[in-house]
């Protein structure tokens, strides 16, 4: 046995022992030991007038953490745009990149039809998930990515040219920034009225109604806009890479 292999065996046994030792102290499957979830479930609806406690946590009790995540996503998408944005694929009629020895296959009719049927349905469902964040499972991030995936179905249904003429990067850039900025700006509503940053100062409304939860709705919409535009921008920048430069020879 080589040194390398014997070293692997020793380290693998040690790692397995550590894993078994660490996992054996966990609570049993399905058992929830912490007090915080139970407390939130008990007081959340009464305090915030929402029925989805996950939304209450992400946009109110832990709204500041979500602000950080929001800017993390913004920075990541900006980084992708900085790295990948060039002349490649910006024209809607840009031809697919050709690589020698690899056949270029068109979309099948089944894919086109499925894309055309799924795109509008998925889009409406995404908007539904965003708007009902305070009532049923889902929220700004979840609805935002569903909306962005509807744009992917649109791409599969209509092809690159139609897609690029509809999903435009110059439009997505400011929308992405506006959604991200709105989240931070909404936090100042609390400061201006003499409360803490991001404190829920808007009228809370009636529990169970579409408009309820006060500031939660605003923050939720800001996240939805930023996430949908951010993911759409990500798809635009990546799919541009599958095109060739104007006049490029392969």
């Amino acid at each position, binding site marked *: 046995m080589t040194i390398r292999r014997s070293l692997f065996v020793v380290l693998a046994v040690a790692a397995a022992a550590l894993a078994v030792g660490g996992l054996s102290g966990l609570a049993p*499957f*399905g058992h929830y030991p912490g007090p915080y979830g139970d407390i939130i479930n008990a007081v959340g609806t009464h305090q915030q007038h929402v029925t*989805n406690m*996950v939304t209450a946590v992400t946009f109110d009790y832990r709204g500041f953490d979500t602000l950080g995540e929001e800017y993390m996503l913004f920075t990541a998408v900006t980084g992708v745009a900085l790295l990948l944005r060039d002349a490649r694929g910006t024209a809607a009629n840009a031809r697919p*990149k050709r*690589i*020698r*020895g690899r056949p270029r296959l068109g979309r099948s009719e089944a894919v086109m039809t499925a894309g055309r049927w799924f795109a509008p349905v998925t889009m409406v469902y995404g908007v539904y*998930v965003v708007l009902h964040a305070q009532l049923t*499972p*889902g*929220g700004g*991030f*979840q609805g935002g*990515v*569903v909306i*962005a*995936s509807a744009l*992917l179905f649109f791409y599969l249904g209509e092809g690159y040219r139609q897609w690029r003429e509809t999903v435009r990067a110059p439009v997505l850039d400011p929308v992405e920034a506006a959604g991200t900025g709105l989240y931070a700006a909404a936090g100042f509503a609390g400061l201006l009225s003499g409360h803490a940053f991001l404190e829920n100062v808007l009228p809370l409304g009636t529990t169970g109604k579409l408009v309820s939860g006060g500031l939660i709705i605003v923050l939720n919409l800001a996240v939805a806009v930023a996430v949908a535009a951010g*993911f759409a921008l*990500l*798809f635009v920048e*990546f*799919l541009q*890479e*599958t095109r060739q430069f104007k006049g490029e020879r392969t």
Partner: protein
Amino acid sequence: MTALFAILLALAAMTGAGVVLSREPRRQAIAIGANGLVLALLFLALQAPDVAYSELVVGAAALPLLFLVALSVLRRGRRPR
């Protein structure tokens, strides 16, 4: 643990192994999408529908797409002379 969890956990292990064992990168991208789909179902069974939404779109659609795009612009193997 009910039969539902046993099936879903077994599926997660199988699709996870499928990602590792498939050697062809394009198949691997599809396999990681299948793994994301199973994980989304598992989160749903564990009563975390919010996480299931995110996993469904990010794990089963966005991630394989980024891999497939990256693969489509790569020249693999030796260039013919």
